[in-house]
């Protein structure tokens, strides 16, 4: 999980990710580092401010294939969707 520190994610958040998620899911996450990195970079680029909360509470989002995720976001008005997600992370359920 150390690779998350490249994005300024702290030990405390990493701990919460581990505690809040099934260990099998965390293992899948670690196995998909490259895809996760791309998704985090994408989220940063579109202005999602709640990346840490998404990691803690919806870890599986980051495992969605990067291209599929981007395509799904782009089927919405991205700025509006981003605003909704920043208010309530469950707005990702719209995807």
């Amino acid at each position, binding site marked *: 999980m150390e690779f998350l520190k490249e994005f300024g994610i702290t030990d405390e958040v990493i701990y919460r990710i581990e505690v809040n998620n*099934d260990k099998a899911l965390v293992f*899948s996450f670690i196995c998909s580092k*490259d895809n996760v990195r791309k998704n985090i970079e994408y989220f940063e680029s579109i202005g999602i401010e709640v990346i840490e909360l998404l990691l803690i509470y919806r870890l599986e989002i980051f495992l969605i294939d990067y291209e599929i995720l981007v395509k799904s976001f782009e089927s919405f008005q991205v700025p509006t969707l981003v605003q909704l997600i*920043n*208010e*309530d992370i469950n707005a990702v*359920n719209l995807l």
Partner: protein
Amino acid sequence: MMVKRLIDLLQKAIIKNKEMIALNKNNNDWNNVYKKQVEKENRNYKKIITALSDSKSRNFITDLEIIDKLLEINNVSEENRNDIYQFILKYNKKVYDYKIGNCSIKDLELLGENDISKLKKLFTKYGYDFDKLPSKIQEVIVDKASINNIKEVFETLLNNNYKLNIEKDAYLLMSLLIGSNKSTISKISKLAFSKGLTSDEVLTIGGILIEQSKNKVRSNKLYERFNIENVIDDGPRVVGSEEDFEKNVKELGKWGISVRYIYDRCKYVLICSNEVLSHNLSLFQDYGFSLKTKNNKLCFSTLSALLKYNTVEIIDRFIEVHPFGLEYLKNNLSILRQVSSLEDLVFYKLYYSNKNFGSEAAFIKIVNNNLSQLALQGKVSGLSSTYYNAYANINEDSKYIITNIFIPTYSRDYYSLIKNKISNDISATIFDNKYIQCVNRYSDYKEPLLYDFDGIRISKLKVLRIFDTLLKVGVEANDESFLYALLYNTMISRDDFVKISKMVKLEG
């Protein structure tokens, strides 16, 4: 290299000792004091050499003091000494694994540096370039894998059409080589393919190909189960989901849900704890939360909620706390991943918002594909980076005072009578109870999960469950005990408490 160095030092030490014995052949004083000691030293050296040279040795190396002394006498550098100790630790761990039945004698074959070229050839044979792996992963494989198992795993992956990308899937490949075996891969592949998954799809949840718990319990019951996570305590984490996957496939089958359906909408349900999945499926059925969706969802909320152990108390609280609580919950069951406690501030904020600003204030209405959906306002969800904990100054210290929630008192400590006895198995006879029959007129005709006492929302399942439990433990059905069941965990004002008490009064 280090092993060879150590063996050389030991052999030189043996020769030196033999020379010493020969030199002092006629020296009785020396022989009386030192000969046995030196002979014993040589036997120890030979024991260590045998252990280090024979890759299938089954004896622990315990003479660390002897080795330490030897390394010091020969001025071996700190770094090299550390490498030697590391090797000895690994070696002893393997022997321990063998002795508790955790690995076969074939697996005792540790890789030394001489075997790296053998390893690379093996990788190449199966179409993988060992040198393209990150160095840390290379080290782990050399350190923890056995040539024999690597061969078998590669062979089985090939036979089942698995093709890993050496760069993208490096971690998974390493995990399979050190944590899996041919029988697990074969068995799980057969199951997964029979359920319509392809080999590429299986790799996206590759943990299912790894043994979940190394539970080769030998006849001597002193040996405990040994989970592979424990083996690698300071190294990489390898988590097997083989057992949970098998059980989950069966479980989902019982509920008429296909593996394909789950895979396409939230594949990680397939690898979550079976105990959690089983519990949640029952729970969601009780509340009528459907696992089916007509829409193609990237991350279907209800399936996402299956990934965490959920409780009836949190669901009941969402139902009761706000007029839109249930609607929001049905479309966003994933909120259950975030809210684990009845004391979560989101409940206090929802309650406060509704009481003071009406039902619309806490939510945003979204229209998407002609469907209207709710999202929480950031100030209420408390999860927004901007509004975290700021709403109405509601925080852990102030939540009770600001919301002014009333805590009823009763003539008995009902909670102590029912705690640890509350069950979701509600008796059929409870429906004949006069109190339940009386409040049926308050059933919300649009929403079967609710009673609506003139705007006071109460979870019907909660009432049935708690009241049924009270009666089962011998509490008499009366106004007070029923009121307790009705308002169990309900956030309510004093005025509403008085109002509802009058509405359900049957006695005098």
